[in-house]
């Protein structure tokens, strides 16, 4: 795990002081809400339907037990005893008081955390693969590159007033667990003749115009990375549209001028930027990489005792192979049947922190699917970990199943939403509560957004649900065939929308069609891609 030196700490501390000053000026009435808005937004503070919401950055989704406990402490002291883990690997607190905000940030800074650039039209938290450092298929740990980008993007003087927000993801495996190509910039680390570099994809995104990022450069060397990304951003900052907020993301620029023209402009800018000496020496990447050295793995390779059937189901569903023999990756589901996707209580957050400390080399990850991962658990400890999770109601064995739903906060919290997401997620999970039934359906990624901004990733759902407002009534559109993984695709709307109960029925009918038509070990999305929409449409609307 990366540890701050005094440079990093001084920057975060300065930010707390600056924000305290800004809040004080607002409370004293020296600045208007209009003037305060860009300042608070640059620091992750949103005014929502009922209260201020604060989004705290969890860089590339990695944290240690001390930081995790701080998140619990904040939930307890400043919020209503829970937090909400987001699709960008961050955590949100929904009930924050403006007067307490600076104190909260000061406490966060003591554990090397902050809310810098978690909103606003700037470069947001860098996201990554939750299995980084543990996945057997990675060519390297992507997190040092993400940390390099975190530092470069923090208070970047040129790119803090971009046309729109800007999201970067870094992965290092052919299997994409971070929806990399649905980001403004997606980087995939690859090796070329033994040298590590990045494939660069630009112009992906969801929102009202979903797009899959095209490859802009097949290989950027480590010591050119920041110059190249700077060039990518400069072209965007100069030529991205600013006339229409809905057309301001980089995907629209890349789409309108074409990937080839964008690539040409970036190459030209890069040729210039490279002469400026903005790239740190490779020694800096090496310094950062040293923090991510593998832990001292020493457990014998023993298979856990599977005699408890509940434990065996959890092992099969939530535990994934580790690159080191004797170890496993544990996924902790934050999707209990009938619960709110991504929410965890302070007590649960503490339990996860304790487990990381006791059994997991002190490391935790947040996933874009709003779950938590203990990346390095010795197989001999799996049963103990499962028992502790079960005590804390965190042992749902539904990873990647239909009840492992991504959902945005929706109209229950969000001032942008048109419809509620949470109750739909709860109803679907409850309808499919039977674990045997869920497991029979297999991998089925269901994602719900409460408005067209698509925070709930519905475009990337095998089944996606989009809540819209139809003449004052909540209406839910269904999409099929999306994927945020390496087989990335954008879902298609299947037909007229439904009311809340209707959409739950439609989802159930779709699963029945799948069960009838599936061949071999096809997943829902494989069957859909093979047979097309018609049989589903017939069953749902016929």
């Amino acid at each position: 795990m990366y540890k701050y030196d005094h440079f990093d700490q001084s920057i975060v501390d300065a930010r707390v002081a600056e924000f305290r000053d800004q809040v004080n000026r607002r409370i004293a009435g020296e600045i208007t809400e209009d003037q305060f808005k860009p300042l608070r937004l640059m620091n992750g503070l949103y005014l929502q339907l009922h209260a201020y919401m604060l989004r705290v950055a969890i860089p590339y989704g990695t944290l240690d037990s001390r930081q995790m406990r701080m998140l619990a402490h904040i939930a307890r002291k400043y919020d209503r005893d829970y937090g909400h883990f987001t699709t960008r690997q961050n955590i949100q607190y929904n009930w924050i008081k403006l007067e307490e905000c600076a104190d909260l940030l000061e406490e966060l800074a003591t554990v090397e955390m902050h809310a810098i650039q978690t909103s606003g039209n700037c470069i947001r938290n860098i996201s990554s693969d939750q299995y980084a450092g543990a996945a057997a298929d990675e060519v390297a740990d992507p997190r040092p590159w993400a940390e390099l980008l975190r530092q470069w993007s923090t208070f970047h003087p040129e790119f803090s007033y971009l046309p729109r927000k800007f999201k970067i993801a870094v992965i290092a495996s052919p299997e994409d667990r971070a929806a990399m190509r649905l980001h403004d910039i997606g980087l995939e680390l690859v090796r070329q003749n033994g040298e590590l570099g990045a494939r660069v994809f630009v112009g992906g995104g969801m929102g009202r115009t979903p797009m899959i990022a095209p490859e802009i450069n097949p290989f950027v060397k480590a010591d050119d990375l920041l110059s190249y990304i700077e060039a990518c951003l400069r072209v965007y900052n100069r030529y991205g549209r600013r006339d229409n907020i809905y057309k301001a993301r980089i995907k629209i620029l890349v789409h309108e001028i074409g990937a080839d023209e964008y690539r040409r402009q970036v190459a030209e800018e890069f040729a210039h930027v490279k002469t400026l000496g903005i790239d740190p020496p490779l020694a800096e990447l090496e310094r950062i990489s040293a923090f991510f050295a593998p832990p001292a793995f020493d457990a014998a390779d023993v298979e856990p005792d599977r005699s408890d059937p509940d434990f065996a189901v959890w092992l099969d569903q939530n535990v994934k192979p580790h690159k080191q023999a004797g170890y496993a990756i544990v996924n902790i589901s934050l999707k209990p049947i009938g619960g709110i996707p991504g929410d965890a209580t302070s007590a649960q957050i503490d339990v996860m922190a304790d487990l990381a400390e006791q059994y997991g080399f002190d490391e935790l990850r947040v996933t874009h699917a709003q779950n938590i991962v203990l990346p390095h658990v010795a197989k001999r400890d799996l049963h103990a970990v499962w028992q502790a999770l079960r005590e804390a109601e965190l042992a749902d064995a539904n990873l990647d199943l239909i009840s492992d739903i991504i959902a945005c906060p929706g109209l229950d919290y969000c001032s942008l939403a048109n419809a509620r997401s949470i109750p739909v997620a709860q109803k679907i999970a409850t309808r499919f509560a039977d674990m045997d039934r869920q497991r029979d359906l297999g991998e089925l990624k269901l994602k719900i957004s409460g408005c067209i901004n698509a925070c709930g990733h519905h475009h990337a759902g095998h089944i996606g649900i989009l809540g819209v407002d139809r003449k004052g009534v909540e209406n839910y559109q269904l999409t099929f065939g999306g994927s945020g993984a390496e087989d990335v695709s954008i879902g298609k709307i299947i037909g007229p929308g439904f009311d809340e109960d209707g959409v739950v029925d439609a989802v159930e009918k779709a699963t029945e069609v799948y069960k009838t038509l599936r061949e071999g070990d096809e997943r829902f999305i494989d069957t859909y891609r093979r047979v097309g929409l018609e049989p589903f449409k017939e069953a749902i609307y016929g």
Partner: protein
Amino acid sequence: MVEFRYRTDEVTEQPSVTLDAFLDQSNATAVRLEPDDDARALIPFLDRLTLIEVAFPKYRDGRGYSSARILREAGYTGELRAQGDVLVDQIAFMRRCGFDSFAPEASLNPEAVARALSTYDQFYQKAADAAVPVWKLRHG
């Protein structure tokens, strides 16, 4: 009106002309760039310019930051002025991008500006100012 100036040379008296007007003629020594003007069009003429004014009609429009850096990167050493919807909390970023004078539409409190400019003493990136980035301090 220029409210903050971080240079010691004389203020240019000549009014600035638009980029089009400048490119059409001229022996003007002061030019004004709108957000959608291409700063690179000025590169052949930098040594005869003493003032480049960059307009910020709305604080949210950040194109002027890139214009400033492009001009400094091309070796421009004259006055680089940010004019328009310039807010106190943007001045530090603008300084880093090479602006050295400010003509905010709404007057700014000098104390608040001084505070904004002294809040941070470490910077992660190399930019158009003299600040030494953290990575260089780490590795020499």
